[in-house]
């Protein structure tokens, strides 16, 4: 069983049941379907960050770099007025992104702790300003995606990405795959050493493990999942711009992961939904929503030391 905790199983059962049914109720309201799709895509991004920060022990402030790269690589690699195959190009983009993450990881992982935070932040800001100032990549306005890709597998096409409901299910699938992938990796033999390196790096090295290699592979995995989220987001809205890569984006995702319960993975889904839900609520209540949002987050972090997932576990685990 890869879902070890009762709370986890209950939450995921409820979440996926509701998530599967949502379009049935909102079919007529494509705005809401789109809104929920965005939340699912963000949840993928936050899960990938929660994996790195909460489970591998790499506190990065530059994770949005890969979120943005996922979008940019798609626009750069695909012909402008031709519908490419989604799966084939997703494979290319994630492969290329993994290579980039490998190179960046090999540099940034030579540092640790506060220096790791600073260097990841610095590299993502460099990329942000590069795209911001670049003429060929559209500068501040970014690039537009004119043709959505088609999604046929062996000639069979189930999903039409222009249909919001179909896109919604593609995003839900991404949540499921990301969740399963991370859980399987954490339970694996590789995951055992990754966990050990987070709990006690000195000891793990003294047991003969090259922890740099374990961290680098984890970094590439986390970054690639983030790029997949970025790719989906770009396809949903039909554009990519430097705002994808801001440090605010990395920071917000970190807040969502902390809110949900650091390192619990399913908590990342919970945190994303809660954060986005509160944001939506406050935005429609008052112009000073930022003040409310900030206070709500401070309150929750103070009261729920282990996040929402930790609170649920306290209620449900015996």
């Amino acid at each position, binding site marked *: 069983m890869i879902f070890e905790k009762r709370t986890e199983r209950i939450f995921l059962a409820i979440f996926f049941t509701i998530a599967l049914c949502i379009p049935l109720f909102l079919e007529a309201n494509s705005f809401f379907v789109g809104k929920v799709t965005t939340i699912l895509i963000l949840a993928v991004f936050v899960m990938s960050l929660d994996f790195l920060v909460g489970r591998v022990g790499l506190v990065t402030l530059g994770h949005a770099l890969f979120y943005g790269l996922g979008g940019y690589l798609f626009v750069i690699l695909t012909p402008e007025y031709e519908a490419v195959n989604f799966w084939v190009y997703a494979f290319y983009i994630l492969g290329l992104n993994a290579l980039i993450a490998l190179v960046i990881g090999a540099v940034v992982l030579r540092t640790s702790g506060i220096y790791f935070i600073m260097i990841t932040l610095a590299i993502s800001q460099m990329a942000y300003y590069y795209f911001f100032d670049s003429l060929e990549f559209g500068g501040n306005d970014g690039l537009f995606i004119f043709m959505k890709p088609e999604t046929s597998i062996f000639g069979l096409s189930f999903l039409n990405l222009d249909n919001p409901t179909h896109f919604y299910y593609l995003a839900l699938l991404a949540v499921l795959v990301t969740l399963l992938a991370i859980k*399987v990796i954490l339970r*694996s033999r590789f995951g*055992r050493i990754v966990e050990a390196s987070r709990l006690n790096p000195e000891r793990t090295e003294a047991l003969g493990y090259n922890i740099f290699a374990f961290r680098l592979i984890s970094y590439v995995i986390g970054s690639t999942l983030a790029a997949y989220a970025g790719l989906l987001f770009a396809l949903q809205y039909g554009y990519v711009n430097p705002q994808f890569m801001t440090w605010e984006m990395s920071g917000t995702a970190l807040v969502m992961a902390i809110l949900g319960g650091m390192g619990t993975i399913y908590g990342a889904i919970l945190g994303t939904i809660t954060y986005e839900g509160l944001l939506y609520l406050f935005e429609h209540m008052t112009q000073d929503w930022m003040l409310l949002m900030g206070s709500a987050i401070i309150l929750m972090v103070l009261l729920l030391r282990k996040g929402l997932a930790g609170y649920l576990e306290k209620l449900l685990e015996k």
Partner: protein
Amino acid sequence: MANDIILETESLSKHWGGIKALNNISLQFHDRQLHGVVGPNGAGKSTLLNMLCGTLQPTSGCIFHKGEQIEGMKPWKFVRRGIGRSFQKTNIYADVTCLENCAVAAQRRFTGSFNLFASRHSNKLVREAAEKALHQVGLESRIHTIAAEISYGEQRQLELAMVLATDPCILLLDEPMAGMGHEESQRIIELLNELKQSYCIVLVEHDMDAIFELSDQLTVLDNGTHLITGTVDEVRNEPLVKEAYLGKEDDEEEAA
């Protein structure tokens, strides 16, 4: 075979700025012998051990393992050559079970640490090796207990079990009996007596009775310099040693 030199240092030195933590140490460690290292606080015992396991780079000098020069290699490469160490301060994975602690240690011996898919519990060999190591140190009743919840003495035993689970040929033990009760240390002494039949053990220990009882060879360090190496009797009758332990103790405390 018993007198094979398995680990050797040549003019090994470690300087921190102007302070000479270790100066010109040349030692030979033999297979299937227990080599005790003693000295007052600040003598450089832990520094020596840290260099022998690769976590500390020597300022100058060489380390040879089975005739091959190994100083400057990464610590994890030392472990792969069979040089295992325990720490002076208990250094375990406190949040997981004793079995998992040893499983982390044992897993490297078997392939598949980069396997992203196979469950960590699926390799029987790892589990058996981990259980065997816990048996060796007498922790079989604590297999499923979280490491943070066992007594301090038991954590020291676990520390030792983790080193054994890596299947080393050389054991570098930094005060394995520190803070243990009489019964527990008796148990470790018995264990070490057994282990030295098959391993080369370098033992740093403050418990003099234990060291005298166990050591085949004994090295005395004082203030970073090598005073003497010999059998227990040779060392006991050496006037320099008495001076180091009795005559200059006040200076040592000031230095520390």
